[in-house]
């Protein structure tokens, strides 16, 4: 395995940037770097959270995607209206695989698409009337909904509809929360601002609903899972571990989450934050206003899980600390068997990642547990504080790319030749056609869960299944393969 030196990585970056015009080159250069663990502050070596260059291929999403798709969407007992033209909601419907329990269309609405389906006349005359009528109708058709959110798409902000007024009016009439979310897609540079706007909307419209209501009986062991979207059941796999060590999980944000859980969250003793990027805002707010501390944790791979469980237990008494040790011990045989089985098949393989908000750094531990090495990583929409946390996780001189363009990613892959790539659906088929094993790491490629010990077993199996799949030898046509082995033998002779 060839590990690149710092100079080689820098040279590679320069080489790839060569094709750009001067200004574009200067701009993109700031987003690419060779990792240097010495650097304490990422802003010294990488620029992030900036507008993408016009003309390049970016895989970022929009603010609406960050709010409706990520933060609000999984709250299962509320109806989330995609307010605006039909496409934004329809093309993203149910794509994120946020699992939940409930009867869809009766008391849960996760995989359904509600949209106000804007037409020309709504753009010209405004859509407030339509929205109001729609909310009333929806409540009649789906009376068991606990609340409604209005997720604005681009045109709403452009034509200046007053969704706040409609929301206030209808909320009064229905006696349910109706939350206007100003997450028009054009806001900000990526979905990241959508997360922030969604967090702020939760803060302003939901979180204080039960401030003076003490009917919820809290215990000293109440925690919440924040920033886990239950992709393929992730939050469930995390929850069981926490409950086994003696804690009580009173809320899941927002995978398989409910409105009541969110309202009760300020009553928790500790907020456990998995995806820092999308929910640090609300965690900070709760710490300031309600004094609920928060802690980042990582449930990918046994090493990180054990670290996190111990750190979580550190906030509680000896009973929980003993519980954490018990849980780690209980699963030890299980995960050791997983490692014994898959490590020999995966040892030394190189991985490149390019995902969203937490996985580019969180999953590294899980790969390392399997003896694999992450040689390049990057985020679509991270900020400085994410890179601060990434630099320590990544090896020296490895490649770090922010908001990487389609072209750059392909060139990096051609040169670094990783054995596996983990990224999204838009990248999947390009790299598979290049003959490189690929896992879609946003939705776990229709698999999962990957969190927790149970998830690790599935993760290891999936990586093996992808990497050691016999199909990768069949990429070349048989007659071309024969030619190649002939020249190889000729060369060897």
């Amino acid at each position, binding site marked *: 395995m060839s590990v690149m030196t710092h100079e080689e990585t820098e040279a590679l970056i320069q080489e790839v940037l060569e094709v750009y015009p001067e200004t574009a080159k200067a701009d993109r250069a700031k987003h690419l770097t060779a990792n240097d663990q010495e650097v304490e502050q990422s802003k010294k070596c990488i620029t992030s959270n900036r507008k993408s260059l016009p003309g390049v291929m970016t895989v970022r999403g929009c603010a609406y995607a960050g709010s409706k798709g990520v933060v609000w969407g999984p709250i299962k007992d509320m109806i989330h209206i995609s307010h605006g033209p039909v496409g934004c909601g329809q093309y993203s419907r149910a794509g994120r695989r946020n699992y939940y329990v409930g009867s869809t269309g009766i008391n849960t609405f996760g995989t359904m698409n509600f949209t106000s389906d804007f037409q020309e006349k709504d753009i010209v005359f405004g859509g407030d009337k339509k929205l109001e009528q729609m909310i009333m109708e929806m409540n009649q058709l789906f009376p068991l909904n606990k609340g409604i959110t209005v997720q604005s798409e681009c045109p709403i902000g452009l034509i200046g509809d007053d969704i706040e007024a409609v929301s206030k009016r209808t909320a009064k009439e229905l006696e349910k929360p109706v939350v206007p979310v100003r997450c028009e897609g054009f806001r900000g540079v990526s979905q990241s601002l959508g997360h922030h706007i969604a967090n702020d909307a939760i803060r302003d419209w939901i979180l204080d609903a039960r401030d003076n209501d003490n009917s919820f009986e809290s215990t000293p062991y109440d925690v919440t899972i924040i920033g886990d979207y239950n992709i393929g059941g992730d939050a469930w796999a995390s929850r069981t571990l926490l409950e086994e060590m003696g804690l009580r999980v009173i809320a899941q944000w927002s995978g398989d989450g409910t409105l009541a859980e969110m309202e009760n969250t300020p009553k928790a003793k500790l907020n456990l934050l998995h995806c820092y990027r999308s929910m640090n805002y609300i965690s*900070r707010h709760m710490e300031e206003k309600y004094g609920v501390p928060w802690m980042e944790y990582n449930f990918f791979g046994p090493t990180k899980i054990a670290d996190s469980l111990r750190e979580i237990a550190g906030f509680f008494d000896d009973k929980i600390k003993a519980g954490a040790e018990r849980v780690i011990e209980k699963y030890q045989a299980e995960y050791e068997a997983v490692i014994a089985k898959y490590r020999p098949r995966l040892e030394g393989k190189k991985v490149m990642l390019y995902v969203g908000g937490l996985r580019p750094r969180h999953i590294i531990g899980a790969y390392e547990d399997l003896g694999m090495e992450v040689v390049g990583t990057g985020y679509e929409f991270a900020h400085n504080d994410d890179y601060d946390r990434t630099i320590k996780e990544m090896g020296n001189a490895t490649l770090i790319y922010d908001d990487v363009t389609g072209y750059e990613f392909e060139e990096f892959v051609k040169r670094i030749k990783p054995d596996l790539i983990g990224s999204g659906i838009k990248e999947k088929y390009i790299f598979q056609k290049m003959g490189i094993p690929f896992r879609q790491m946003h939705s776990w490629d229709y698999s999962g869960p990957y969190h927790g010990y149970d998830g690790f077993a599935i993760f290891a199996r999936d990586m093996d299944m992808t990497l050691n799949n016999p199909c990768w030898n069949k990429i070349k046509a048989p007659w071309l393969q024969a030619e190649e082995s002939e020249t190889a033998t000729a060369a060897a002779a």
Partner: protein
Amino acid sequence: MPNVMIRAKNNGKLLFYIAKKDQEDEIESVETDTEEAWGGVVNLTDGSQYYIDPISPKPKFPTTLRFKRV
């Protein structure tokens, strides 16, 4: 004049978080840090300096305050 959220880290140090810039830095030293007052010039680990008129009594952290760049 950025709005800054200050919170106590697990290691006892104070964390200086500027939401607008997503910047997280530890506070190295504070000019006045007694029970009666907290504030003055604040030095961060990255070398930058901020100023706030001393607040009395010392505020409870976490809290959001308005600082001036020095």
